[in-house]
Structures are given as structure tokens and as C-alpha cells.
């Protein structure tokens, strides 16, 4: 696959250093996922040319756009990059049509051609009849679509989306996400989606790049990342318990605890299992589960139809139990229980 974007982004912002390698193929959608302050937005700004690199390089479609060691830098207005900003930044004094026509016009199209192209794009995002409206007359979902049309109307080799759905309410979000997926699928260039919402990332992206503290901590397709998280942040995102320990065949030692796993691993390893795989007992259970330890309840929250119980002990673990089981066990913070996990429900993989 031809890599349209090949970048090693090293940038500094407010005493924070970003150091991220990114490669995106034509037609590929990559989600840059990470907690707040991880450097996602800085990465996006560097790619758009709104912030300079201090080292590394940024090559798009074979051309160096930013390469400090060769003193190469292309200003944002000359980069084949389109951006959908988090709060869209539609120009309030221009109609939807003129907002979308702005890019083509700046890139050399005459007024008539730019407007025709803008109308085409508005039609494509289903807003052909809203062309004359000003941004403040549009709903959140409509504004998002105009912003997308505006970014795509310049035919960017690289499309950047900064939390494109964050400003929308839950219901609009669902519809807009589905539509966004359709448009991203049709975009022939590279797409980078910056988000902190795992659902956006999983639905919209072909590949996930997870950053924490300015570094890439994990990379891969959705299936790999969700099945084999490598940091607590990723584990929390995908809803798994995650421990790091030393493996020797089917046994993984995590601190004082020895866990038996179905997979065979040697050396440093991760063990992951869903909270629903953790069973709680009032006393030490007899019989099959080999992974059993004493734990103390630290918190209980609703989680869908069940309750999610936070436990402390040799390891920090979350367990999902039914309300009936919770009532039976009398789960209040401070309560001592026994936690059990079946080996068959764990997954072990090298660290």
C-alpha cells in the first residue's frame, strides 16, 4: 500500500514534547486516540502547518512540507490539507455556500466555479437547500456537515478531523457518525481523525494510533487494540482489566498473585480479561476456578443493567455483577470478598 503521509512529528508546545511517527495510506482512515493533553491536537496542528516541527519530518504525497534539518517549511495555505475543526469555525459572516466556496476560491477557482463546486459539496452532504443560510442559522449537525464539505471541497491529500463529533448531542452524534463514515469512506486521500472517544475511533477508523504523554503507546487495527490493550488507558477505553507480569507457560506472576491463563507465553507479558469474567464470592470458592484471591470493595457504580464493582487487593480489578448478586453479597465499600477468574476467559500476550 502506498503511504500518502509519512511523518515523524517532533514538536514542542508549552514545555510539552510530542514525538510521534505516523504513516497513512491513500484512502486509509487513522484515528489518533488519547487522553486529554496527550498531544493529539498538537499533532493535528503540526500536520496542518499551524505549528512548526522542531525535528523529524512531514512528507505528504512525496513532498516535504516540514523538515527542520533541511529548513523546509510550507505554510498552511500552500498545503494540500483540509481541516475540520472541533467547533467547526465556520465563518459567521458568510453563507454556508460561501464558506464551502472559500477554499476553492483561494486555490484559484473563479467565483462561479467555486460556487458551483460548493453547491455540489453541499448537495453531497445533504444540505443543498441550506446553501444561503448563515452558520448561526444551522443546527449543530448541519454545521458539522458544512465544515466537512468545506474541508473536502479543496480536494485535500490529507483530511484532518479534530474531535468532529464532540460538540454534538448524543442523538445527532449517532446520525452524523454514520454519515461521516460514508464520506470518509469515499475520500481518496489520507484521513487522520483526532478523538478521545473510542467509539468514534472504532466506527470511523481503519487503524488506531494511541498516544499518551506525546508518545505512541499502541498501534493497530480495531480488533487487535481491543483484544490486546497495552496500557491502562487503552484497557479502560476498551473495557478490560489489564495486568502486566512475568509469564512462564500458562502461569503469569503479577506481583504476589499467580494467574493461570489459557494462552502460553514466556517472559514479560500482559494478561487481559473483561470485568464480566470476574466472579465474586462471599467466601473462598471450591472447585474449578484456579485464579482466586481475596479482595476489598472500594466502589460500586451502575454499568448498563449490571453493577461495576471496583476492587483492591493484590491487583486492582473491576468486576461486573448482577444487581441480585450484589444484594446477595452485600457489596458496600470496605467489604471483603473473594474474586475468581476462569483461565479460559483470560488472554495473555507478550509485553
Amino acid at each position, binding site marked *: 500500500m502506498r503511504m500518502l503521509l509519512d511523518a515523524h512529528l517532533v514538536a514542542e508546545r508549552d514545555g510539552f514534547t510530542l514525538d510521534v511517527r505516523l504513516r497513512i495510506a491513500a484512502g486509509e482512515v487513522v484515528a489518533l486516540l488519547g487522553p486529554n493533553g496527550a498531544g493529539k491536537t498538537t499533532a493535528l496542528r503540526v500536520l*496542518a*502547518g*499551524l505549528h512548526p516541527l522542531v525535528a523529524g519530518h512531514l512528507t505528504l504525497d512525496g513532498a516535504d512540507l516540514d523538515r527542520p534539518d533541511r529548513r523546509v517549511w510550507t*505554510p*498552511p*495555505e*500552500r*498545503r494540500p*490539507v*483540509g*481541516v475540520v*475543526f472541533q467547533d467547526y*469555525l465556520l*465563518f*459567521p*459572516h458568510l453563507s454556508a455556500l460561501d464558506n464551502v466556496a*472559500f*477554499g476553492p476560491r*483561494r*486555490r484559484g477557482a473563479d467565483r462561479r466555479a467555486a460556487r458551483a463546486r460548493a453547491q455540489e459539496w453541499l448537495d453531497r452532504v445533504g444540505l443543498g437547500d441550506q446553501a444561503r443560510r448563515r452558520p448561526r442559522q444551522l443546527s449543530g449537525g448541519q454545521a458539522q456537515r458544512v465544515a466537512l464539505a*468545506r*474541508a473536502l471541497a*479543496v480536494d485535500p491529500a490529507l483530511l484532518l478531523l479534530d474531535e468532529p463529533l464532540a460538540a454534538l448531542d448524543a442523538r445527532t452524534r449517532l446520525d452524523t457518525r454514520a454519515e461521516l463514515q460514508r464520506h470518509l469512506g469515499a475520500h481518496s486521500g489520507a484521513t487522520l481523525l483526532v478523538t478521545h472517544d473510542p467509539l468514534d475511533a472504532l466506527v470511523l477508523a481503519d487503524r488506531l494510533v494511541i498516544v499518551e504523554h506525546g508518545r505512541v503507546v499502541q498501534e493497530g487495527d480495531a480488533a487487535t487494540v481491543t483484544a490486546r490493550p497495552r496500557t491502562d488507558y487503552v484497557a479502560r477505553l476498551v473495557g478490560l482489566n489489564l495486568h502486566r507480569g512475568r509469564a512462564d507457560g500458562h502461569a503469569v506472576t503479577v506481583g504476589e498473585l499467580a494467574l493461570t491463563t489459557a494462552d502460553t507465553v514466556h517472559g514479560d507479558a500482559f494478561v487481559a480479561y473483561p470485568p464480566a469474567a470476574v466472579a465474586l464470592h462471599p467466601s473462598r470458592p471450591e472447585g474449578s476456578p484456579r485464579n482466586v484471591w481475596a479482595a476489598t470493595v472500594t466502589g460500586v457504580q451502575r454499568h448498563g443493567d449490571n453493577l461495576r464493582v471496583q476492587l483492591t487487593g493484590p491487583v486492582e480489578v473491576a468486576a461486573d455483577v448482577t444487581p441480585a448478586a450484589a444484594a446477595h453479597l452485600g457489596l458496600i465499600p470496605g467489604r471483603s470478598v473473594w474474586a475468581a477468574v476462569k483461565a479460559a476467559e483470560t488472554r495473555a500476550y507478550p509485553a
Partner: protein
Amino acid sequence: MSRGVRRQRVPVALLVPAGLGLAFLVLPLAGLLLRAPWTTLPRRLAEPGVLTALRLSLETATVATLLCVTLGVPLAWLLARVEFPGRRLVRALVTVPLVLPPVVGGVALLLVFGRRGLIGSWLDETFGVTLPFTTAGVVLAEAFVAMPFLVIAVEGALRGADPRYEEAAATLGAGRFTAFTRVTLPLVAPGVAAGAVLCWARALGEFGATITFAGNYPGRTQTMPLAVYLALETDLQAAIVLSLILLTVSVVILAALRDKWIGST
């Protein structure tokens, strides 16, 4: 209903000084109106010198405002958007004409643009152009005194405007100048209009720098404030009439512009 209740809740501690402030500003105006020689007003209005001075005032104030907008808006943008060493100092320098007594401003202008001035002598020798005692000199004096009002108003508007709109414009292919003219300027248009109105009003009332730099000659450099001052030397009532004319014309124009540009109620 609820509006009535809200209205009653205006605290006395604010209402009293507010009322006093208003009275302080309005009473001198009332004084002018009370002392105005209403019976001879039409005759005085018809005097040719009056209309000449009024026209000169309106023309020079308008040209001075255009000059201030042309030079002041980019200056405000520079101060609001570009980081450069000494920016604080430059900002302070821009406001100097505000605190400088206008007469001193006039002398300063003479030292630069006067016949022996740094630039003035060069203009005179090279192009045979002299600015003092000309209508252009009036415009220059008015612009010097009024420009800070415009720059401060526009800079405030620019600081209030989200700079990310310029970034969005850049990602769409607009260079900084295009982003400024196509995006930023329309966004801060109300601020520019407010600044221009302030600037115009200040230019219209300008006296000290004008008489110092441009002198006083009817039809050429004698604006209304100069005419008022000289009328005061001999004829108080004539001075009051001239003041009322200037006042009426400016209030009418300002009210019209405010509604049209700034959209205030």
C-alpha cells in the same frame, strides 16, 4: 412583568452616580441651549463664514477618518496578532496622542512636517509641498489626534475575535493578508465602525493641534472649533450658535451611523 421587576432592582449605589454622571454630561449642553439666541439664529446660520467652516470641518474630519482607518486598522492588527519585540512599547506609543496636549501635538507635527521639519523640509525641497497652513495640514492634525481612538477600538475588537478563524482560513488556502481582509476584517467590522465613529467625532472637535499645525484661515484651515474659539473673543452668542450647529450636525450623523453600522438600539 418580569422586566418591570428587574427594573426596580437597579441598586441605588449605582443609580445615583449614574444619574449624576448623566447630569454632568448633559447640563452644559442644556446651558448652551438655554443661552442660545434663538431669534437671531436663522440670520446667523445664513452667514457665509459659518457654512464654510462647517463644510471644512465635515470634510476634513471625514478624510482624516479615512486616513486613520487605512493606516490604523493594519496597525491594530499588528498589535493584536503579531508577536514582536517591543510590542508593549509600541502599544504605549500609539496612545501617546491621547495624553499629549493637542497643542503640543501640533508643535510636534510642525517639527516633523513643518517647513523646517525632518520630513517637511524634504517634501518642500523635493516636491514643493508644504503642509502647514493647508487643508491637508488640518487633516493631518486631526488624524494625529484621532487615530489612537481607532487603533484602540480595533485592537480591542481583534483581541476579542477568535484568531482560529484566521487559522481556518489558512488551511483553506488563504495567506495572512487574504485571511485578514476576507475573514478577520468582516468579523471585526462592528469594532472598526465604532472606532471610526469615535475617531470622526474626535477629529471633528479637534482644536489645539489644528490651530498649531495648520493655523487659522477661513475657507482653508478654519474649522468649526477654531471659528467657535475666535467668535468667543468678540461675540459669545455667535460662539454659542456655532457650537450648536456643530453639535447638532455631529449628533445627527453619529446617531445615524450608530444605527446603521453598529446596530445598537
